[in-house]
């Protein structure tokens, strides 16, 4: 499968964070989840299904998510993933530390531009 060179690899934990954030809005099934992330990022982030499903299972194992039988938008049987209380707490914690980190990175990158110095 040829890769779009504009798509960068996500850093560790980023995919999990996006999954948790997306599921906070409402519980959804796998395909919807993948589509949502793609659209919300204006196609900048394309999730490989190859990593989405293992990540979902890891989050379930950590009891941050739970799943239940349900039907998709098209009426086919599937599994609906939902955030647990622990998942919510984890998301808030991670988001704040993620924001701090992101702010930090932005500042460092800002200082490195000589013409603005």
């Amino acid at each position, binding site marked *: *499968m040829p890769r779009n060179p504009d798509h960068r690899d996500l850093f560790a934990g980023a995919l999990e964070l996006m999954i948790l954030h997306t599921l906070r809005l409402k519980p959804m*099934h*796998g*395909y919807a989840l*993948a589509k949502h992330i793609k659209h919300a990022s204006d196609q900048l982030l394309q999730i*490989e*299904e*190859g990593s989405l*499903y*293992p990540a*979902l*299972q*890891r989050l*379930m*194992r950590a009891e941050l998510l739970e*799943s239940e039988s349900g039907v*998709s*938008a*098209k009426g*086919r*049987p*599937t*599994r609906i993933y939902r955030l647990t209380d622990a998942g919510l707490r984890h998301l808030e914690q991670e988001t704040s530390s993620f924001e701090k980190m992101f702010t930090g990175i932005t500042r460092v990158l800002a200082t490195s531009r000589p013409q603005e110095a």
Partner: protein
Amino acid sequence: MAFWKLFSRRRRYEDVSVSIQEHLAERAEELMEEGVPRAEAERRARREFGNVTLVEQRSREAWQWPTIESILADVRFAVRQLVKVPGFTVTAVLTLALGIAVNATMFSMVSAFLMPHIPGRDPQRVVVVSAVSPYDNFLPDTYRVSAPNYESIRADRRVFADTAAMWNEIPGSLGGKDEQPEAIQYEAVTPNYFGIFGVSPELGRGLQPGEDQPGRDHVVVISHALWARRYSSNPAIVGKSIRLNREDYTVVGVMGADFRLMLMTPQLWTPLTLTPADQTPDARRTRKLMVLARLAPGVTVQQADAEAKRLAAQAAADYPQIDGRWGASVRILKDYLVHDFHIAQAMAVMMTAVGLVLLIACANVSGLLLTRAAGRQKELAIRASLGASRWRIVRQLFLEGLTIALLGGAAGLGLTWGGVRLMRSLLTFTYAIATIPIRLDEKVLLFAMGATLLAALFSSVAPAVKASRTDLNADLRSEGRAATAGRNRNRMRAVQVGSEIAMALFLLCGTGLLTRGVYSLDHQRLGFREDHLLTAGLLLDGAKYPDGPAQARFVHDLLSRLHLIPGLEDVAVTSNMPATGAGKVPVHIDGIADPPPSEPRRTETVVVTPEFFAASGIAALRGRTFTDHDDVNAPRVAVVNQRFMQRYLGEGDAVGRRVKLEVAGTPQWDQIVGVVADVKSYSEETRVDPLVYEPFAQRPANQFSVMLRGQADPDSMIAPLRQTVAALDAELPLMDVMSMERVIDQQRNGDPVFVEILGTFAGLALLLSAIGIYGLIAYSVRQRTQEFGIRVALGANARDIAGMVLREGILVAAIGSAIGLVLALPLGRGFDAMFPGIHFSSPGIYPAVLLVMIVVAVGATLAPARRAMKVDPTAALRIE
């Protein structure tokens, strides 16, 4: 909770599949809504998603404990695969079972003989101090120590915290009066002996300080074996009185069953009494004490050894005439026992042999697995294309090998159980060997497990790696069209089979040399007549036979009564039976100067009654042998053997010369009256040493053997012999009543058994490598069926085809044999060095073994070659 998780896993796995299936369906539907046709939409959905199996597997792995589950799945798969090909599985399992079983059985002997259990606490601190003989004796560094030297070691408290002395292998008579006397071997030990080990008796008490004083020394501690055998394990024996050497002793204790020390495992222990006479300079000549010590805290064995050598040097300086060239050596008790048993070399030979058998077995199984992997090429390619990683495939194949090895190990343990029992029944030829416990214990189990894992590794890694290096495209596309398929794979198998042949040839040469060496010993002419001879040992105790005249009187009475046995031809008494290794002493010859003390002139010394030469069939070459007139009042006479005459006297003037032996008591001059034929000094060696015979009447001994020659079976004389001795002395036990042939057989000390076992291993190796050659050629013929078909179609005849196949087999065999032969060439000299006294170099063995190997190789190639000859070109070319 954990259990629930395990059970709920199946549901989780379904979750993943359902989600993915829905994902694919939804994407396809979306594409169809955009106007893409259904088939194309489904294809694109799948392509965008990637490898479904791999994603499913990764998703599941989130729930798994690091891959244990997937390994279990692989094992289940491996078992299913193996069940499908029972012929292959049974062959491979049995091959490995045999290899593992011979190794584990041999290891049970190694464990028993080379890793003896030493009773008590901290056995690594218990050492043996032994004297080192300056002469070229057997195991010169295991000599006993004299009482004065023991005293100086004992006084050295800084190095030896506690020192005990033991006089072992004392022959004695147990019972008597109202019960049949029994000849036993016992030990006299200083009262602190058991304390050195930190062991207390199982029943009663040990020996106490002061019980080594005359008057208080009639106490015994009996062994567990004697207690069980003679006293029916009755605990009331403690405190009872038993009869030992015509005297009453009180049993004070019974040792536990695990108190055994290989060769130093007696029936009972009495106190060792050392008197002031044992401290005189003359007592230095008597080296009979085993000295055991517990090292002082912090002292190493090396330091103790240096200290013992210092003490020996001191004694040598003080008493140069006696201790002059003697040294000392300190060993940990365990090492001493193993060294003294002198079986390490034989064990090393055996372990090498079984190790090679296992390697050959592994090579065969490896070959089988390679063949199978070749047949499964497409299956593996398909699995790889479905997303199985290379590691996963290697693991899968390794697990198949491991499963086979584990099954082989389990079956091998069953065989080992039988093997250990067989060994136990074979190894009973001497008392010492019979007391060594050979068991299938945890050490052997552990070893078998190790051997199993090694077998798994050796037999499956090569095929697994080889098979995993698959080229997907080539393997999936190929339909077996290539005319000479699998050349590369065959090369690996050819190398395997070649090394199998090399190992088998090496093993066969080694066994051949050993068998030849032992056979020539077994069949060497000893120089006397062994048949129709009954022998028995007698020990005249000091209580009833205190001096020479009393001993001579007894022997005179005994011989005249034994002559009344019907059918008896000759009967004699001798201090040493022929070919059983007599003691050596320095000898002086009248008129010939003594050699320098560094190379003393020594001779074997034996005292015999007149009929000895007739009874043993030793011919007089010059002069005469002894008569009844050569008694205590007649002039002292001697008879020498031919070797003595040749080495020390020169031809011609032996009779009439005078010799003086340095024996205990007052040495006296004897006149040589005759020269007799040589007898081998020891039945298991080829040498003949100088020997001087003296008349028993002129130098009586308290310990001797009786030899009876009759026309009938020697065993038929046992009852009359026992009755005669009992009539003379009811309390005198007969020792080792057996035919002369049996005496010689015991001296072989299991060498024939050893060679038979080794021969079995070599046969096994030959068989396995024959199977290996057969497998290789049969497989290659099957693979080349199309090639042969084409050749026949192009005009080759059946003879050409068979020639090609035979050439292939013989080429591999020839290269393997050449390597094996080169490796085996130094074996003869190696064995000579390992087992002194026997000559193994016999060049005839090598061509003989080579011939056997070639015959076997041709035989194993013949069947596949015949199959190749019958290839029908039309049928062969149709196969796809």
